[in-house]
């Protein structure tokens, strides 16, 4: 096993329990915003899409697919964050107060 893969596996092994722990603490009140927020964050795969679309060496087919992927993940990012914020703006505690 190469060194790179080993490090990646360590990262995974630490990130999974961290994610589980973080999400367990989220109040059920906010489960819908949680889903749309994580939905937006999962579009971080835009990184991979940009790397392909902007690559100087990739064949045209790959670049075209990369550009489509950039568009799709941008939709995901924009829609995900905006809807989350729209929802969270509505949550307020007491009459009159913010």
């Amino acid at each position, binding site marked *: 096993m190469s060194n790179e893969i080993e490090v990646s596996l360590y990262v995974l092994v630490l990130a*999974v329990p961290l994610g589980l722990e973080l*999400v367990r603490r989220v109040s059920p009140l906010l489960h819908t915003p*949680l889903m749309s*927020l994580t939905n937006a964050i999962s579009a971080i795969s835009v990184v*991979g*899409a940009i*790397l392909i679309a902007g690559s100087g060496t990739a064949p045209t087919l790959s670049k075209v697919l990369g550009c489509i992927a950039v568009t799709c993940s941008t939709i995901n990012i924009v829609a995900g964050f905006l809807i989350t914020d729209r929802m969270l703006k509505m949550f307020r505690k007491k009459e009159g107060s913010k």
Partner: protein
Amino acid sequence: MTEAAGGVWQAAYIVAALSVVLSIKWLSSPVTARRGVFAGEFGLLFAIIGTLLRQEVVSLEWILVSMAVGAAIGVPLAYLMPMTAVPQLTALSHAFGAFAAALVGTAEYYREPVTGFKMTALAIEIVLGFLTTTASIMAFGKLQEIIPTRPMTYRGQNFVNLSLFAFALALGGWMIYEPAPSWVFPAFTGLALLFGVLLIMPIGGGDMPTVIALLNSYAGAACCAMGFALENRLLIIAGAVNASSGFILSVIMCKAMNRSFTNVLFGAFGQVQAGGTAQVAAKPVKSATAEDAAQVLASARKVIVVPGYGMAVAQAQHKLRELTDALTKRGVDVEFAIHPVAGRMPGHMNVLLAEADIPYDRLHEMEDINPDFAEADVALVIGANDVVNPAARHDKNSPIYGMPILDVDKAQTVMVIKRSMNPGFAGIDNELYYMDRTLMLFGDAKSFVGEIVKELPAVG
């Protein structure tokens, strides 16, 4: 590009990873939640800028154009959808994200020959990406009711699905063994796409909260696999956090229905009792008018409202807020009981009630409020059905036996607003409706609540 510039993108990625983690941490409480969204946006921004600065990225024009197109579609999508349509929007957004992940995998595959570990990661990314794409589109169709929400089943369905999946796995294994592009790759993607469709077909609308959470998890896992394929740890962290989020939510949803994962995915809920509804329909129920209901509510001290998907469909949350205000003014204590699987996605009811400006400290989780029903004068059920069915506690033959429910039947008076006596989505009859203390209020939830509000000043 120089060494120093190389350091810039790596630093940006580290900031991005930290922001993603903080984003979810801040979402834990409504007080800090908006900061969480900001942190998430900040993280994504850093990830994108960092990537654009990398020396591998030589041409920017098409990337920027593609992003502009994406933003032009995404912004109206987020602002034009009504709040009741959040589950659909989330499903659609999943479809786009997963499709992007799948396309990156495909592009990567056709870019240069890959082998071994990287090919394995790519195959996982591609299969999860494509199956989540079609599954999300199917879920969108069911939530938008373009596709019938009823489970679609046929004999041997599970066998067909499982063998299809096994076949896809075999092809995946072949690709890892023999990675040169051939007919295997298109067949593999085709199977993944088909499997996504078949996976959602037998799942009913009531199980959507679990399924959406599960799809969220798959999208995260695809992102994580991409991280392994590209040796990008930012993607691994974000993907893993995401996958675990979706996973936990779907486990919570399953628990709230007392069902296992396999049962949700392969059980085709709601088919079981289709025949059992005819003979009970003849039993007498007590129905009441808006005026009667207003009278009962006005003389109550404590009212617990139980909203369900029916409230969302009728868009009754704003009228409900008027009713809450009117009753509160009269000194009635009005609280809301939220079942974990009420609605079509986790937390759906909370969002709708928040939209109607009902303060969130009035919204209570099932475990917290269940003991209070015994002291409540009125339990007002609006568009909820299975989550208040007492059969879940004692009737071993009921398909929902064992599912934790809201104990509305313990309240002094139970009022149920319902369109008609037609059994709910799952087709299970509800004995709650035939109790002596139950008043059935037949009509559209929105207009009926409106009428109660109108009648209130006339009473006492």
